């Protein structure tokens, strides 16, 4: 038997100026189940809340309807008051008499009648409310960071420094990512490796960080605070514990002509290799795809020369299982290769290179030791053309977005070139210049004013090769689309930044959404840039969209703060307004027929299949079950369910139907 209290607020004059509050309270008092009905000036004030609390205590109220402002305003306030008085907070509802009634209508009978109707609706609803308790889910305080570039490194360090454990996995033999390939960084022209390597070493030495390189995520199960990850450690063919990193094997390996991934194909490496001298960990791996022993069964020289006998040809991949509480995805991006561009020769011309390849040329530890040289004949180019927006901002190429960093690195490349080749002439063909960061615009101006880089506003229609030169055909749109033809020695394409090859697969393993370009999707583009729609999984860096180093670092720290927040509790508390699939005694068990349409409707993968078994352990059937830790309470599944077996607390079928019926019937 309901004992509902109705508390009508004047809200000063905000409600009472157009709504006759006394009349509303009087009408409410007559409803079946309402045992207490009163109006007061300021319900949310201390005295107002006291009225509610006293009524609960003295009248033994089982439900409270506060008819005042919007529940988006004060629902927590009144629920807290009820809880303090000993009434379950979810037995408190609010009727919106202010924003939806008194403030938007003129004073009069219709307005008061509407107020009365709105109160009646909530009174009927509350008769079907249940006491609910917040849901608690435990938290494993270990984070998994996927990707060891600058974003992953920053996130790992930040989380580890809060005292929690981190497992960092990186698919390459070393951490460092693209930042380790750069020569200098804009806008300061800091040496990239100089600022990066101390962080890399810190990661390797940090007591809270476990680093797995040459490893990837095999599978992921579970939910926020309670993930189970399987990590595949690819076999390095080395016993890392006894390898000293002396490098003798690398110097003796006869297989020296494998294109180096770190040098973007501009230099070679051996089959047993370390990607670059400052690699962390500085232990080699054997590339089984190219190694003579694995392909032809011969050689084994590395094994013979290794002073500690650390080579293990028979080593197999290892699967490591880990319990994880939160995940940070920091897998970064990649760049399009020249063979993507038919107008630039389908990758035919060795002197048409990408920005990343130029970085390797400019890098002091690169294949040309920092000298800008043509890949075709090793000569120093006297005329170099930089092409902006190669692929980006181009609907026809399927990449309509801007890759953000290219305008800046082109200016940087042109400047580096001019510094290294004083007599050289550089040209930049651009559409717009995007230099929106701190000190960025000034940096580009330096390139133009101090270093004499020629900026031409126009696009390149064709590049072809003739007599050892690259003929670049473009137009200067600021000179009325005057055709420009340059005989260049080298062309650097600022090719589009795109998602990594395995991004889609990883997203599906993690159940995070991704956009049509396979960049991972943030939960809200403005206000939740580091969260995903999957609770407990966060994003850092260019895996979400092309971005530069400072932003990647900032995002990584942001993600770490979220993880630290998550780990600051031993238990997660969540609002209990979630979906529930009914359970009934045998032999029905549940009215759910196991069609699992709800699973396809749920955006959060919060619904699972539960196997119902009898006492003998035999499977009766599978029915749906909602994971209270994951359900966000949208109720889409409820509308989907054909048998009405799933319902959502706070908006149950009974509640909602009773609201509709109450609207048109005076009870």
């Amino acid at each position, binding site marked *: 038997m309901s004992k509902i209290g109705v508390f009508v607020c004047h809200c000063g004059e905000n409600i009472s100026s157009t709504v006759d509050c006394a009349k509303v309270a009087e009408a409410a008092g007559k409803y079946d189940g309402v045992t207490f009905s009163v109006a007061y000036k300021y319900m949310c004030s201390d005295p107002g809340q006291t009225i509610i609390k006293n009524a609960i205590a003295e009248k033994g109220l089982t439900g409270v309807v506060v008819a005042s402002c*919007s*529940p*988006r305003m004060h629902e927590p306030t009144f629920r807290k008051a009820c809880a303090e008085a000993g009434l379950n907070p979810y037995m408190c509802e609010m009727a*919106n008499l*202010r*924003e*939806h*009634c008194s*403030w*938007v*209508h*003129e004073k009069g009978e*219709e*307005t008061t009648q*509407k107020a009365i*109707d*709105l109160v009646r*609706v909530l009174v009927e609803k509350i008769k079907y409310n249940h006491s609910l308790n917040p849901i608690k889910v435990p938290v494993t305080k270990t984070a998994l960071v996927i990707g060891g570039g600058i974003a992953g490194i920053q996130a790992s360090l930040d989380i580890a420094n809060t005292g929690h454990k981190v497992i960092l996995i990186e698919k390459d033999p070393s951490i460092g990512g693209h930042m380790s390939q750069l020569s200098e960084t804009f806008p300061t022209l800091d040496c990239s490796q100089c600022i990066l390597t101390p962080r890399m070493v810190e990661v390797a030495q940090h007591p809270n960080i476990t680093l797995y390189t040459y490893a990837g995520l095999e599978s992921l199960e579970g939910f926020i605070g309670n993930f189970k990850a399987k990590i595949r450690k690819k076999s390095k063919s080395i016993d890392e514990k006894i390898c000293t990193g002396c490098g003798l094997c690398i110097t003796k390996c006869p297989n020296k002509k494998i294109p180096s991934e770190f040098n973007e194909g501009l230099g070679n490496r051996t089959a047993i290799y370390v990607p670059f001298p400052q690699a962390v960990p500085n232990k080699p791996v054997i590339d089984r795809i190219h190694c003579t022993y694995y392909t032809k069964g011969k050689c084994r020289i590395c094994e013979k020369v290794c002073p500690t006998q650390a080579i293990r040809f028979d080593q197999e991949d290892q699967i490591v299982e880990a319990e994880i509480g939160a995940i940070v995805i920091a897998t970064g991006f990649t760049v399009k290769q020249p063979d993507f561009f038919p107008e630039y020769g389908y990758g035919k011309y060795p002197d048409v290179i990408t920005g990343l390849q130029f970085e390797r040329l400019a890098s002091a530890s690169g294949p040309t030791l920092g000298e800008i040289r043509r890949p075709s004949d090793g000569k120093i180019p006297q005329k170099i053309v930089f092409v902006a927006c190669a692929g980006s901002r181009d609907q026809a190429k399927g990449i309509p977005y801007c890759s953000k960093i290219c305008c800046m690195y082109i200016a940087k490349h042109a400047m580096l070139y001019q510094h290294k080749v004083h007599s050289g002439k550089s040209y930049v063909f651009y559409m717009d210049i995007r230099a929106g960061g701190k000190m960025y615009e000034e940096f580009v101006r330096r390139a133009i004013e101090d270093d004499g880089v020629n900026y031409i506003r126009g696009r390149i229609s064709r590049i072809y090769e003739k007599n050892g030169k690259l003929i670049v055909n473009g137009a200067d749109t600021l000179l009325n689309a005057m055709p420009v033809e340059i005989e260049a020695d080298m062309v650097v394409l600022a090719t589009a930044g795109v998602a990594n090859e395995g991004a889609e697969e990883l997203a599906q393993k993690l159940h995070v*959404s991704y956009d049509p370009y396979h960049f991972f999707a943030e939960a809200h583009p403005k206000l939740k840039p580091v969260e995903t*729609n999957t609770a407990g999984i966060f994003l850092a860096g260019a895996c979400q969209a092309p971005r530069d180093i400072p932003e990647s670092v900032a995002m990584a720290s942001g993600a770490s703060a979220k993880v630290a927040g998550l780990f600051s509790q031993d238990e997660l508390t969540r609002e209990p*307004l979630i979906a529930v699939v009914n359970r009934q005694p045998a032999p029905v068990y549940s009215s759910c027929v196991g069609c699992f349409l709800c699973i396809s*409707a749920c*955006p*959060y993968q919060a619904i699972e299949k539960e196997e119902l078994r009898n006492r003998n352990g035999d499977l009766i059937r599978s029915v749906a079950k909602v994971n209270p830790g994951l359900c*966000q*309470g*949208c*109720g*889409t599944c*409820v*509308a*989907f369910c054909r048998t009405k077996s799933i319902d*959502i607390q*706070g*908006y149950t*079928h009974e509640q*909602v*139907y009773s*609201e*509709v*019926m109450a*609207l*048109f*019937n005076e009870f």
Partner: protein
Amino acid sequence: MADFEPKIVAFVCNWCTYAGADLTGTSRIKYASNVRIIRFPCTGRIDYMLLLKAFDEGADGIMVSGCHPNDCHYTSGNFHARRRWIMFRSLCDFMGIDIRRIIFSWVSAAEGARWADIVNTTVASIRELGPYDEYRKIAAKPIMEVENHG
């Protein structure tokens, strides 16, 4: 029909339209008082049988409103609501239910003025259409016939 004031119920989502209607209030924009809002977490939750129930109980018009596509607080609830609506509308039309009396809209939390506009337009059009007595006649009819034939 001079004195006829339509009774309209609006099923709205908490995150966008409910908040948008709140904004209308905060902005003190006045609109017709015929609409009563019922709150849902998401338009995806709205079971369209509820709409028929509303007609059955005496509603002259119904509004369903939620977040703009791509902005759903729960990612995809409004997509499901939209798809459901397209099919439901066809079905209702086929059955002879006056679908001019169901208004489907997207109103964001920032569109206070728009909510007022939509309400006023809806009220005006339902007032023109008159009271929806036919629904109960349509809904009740088969049962009566069966009873008569014993």
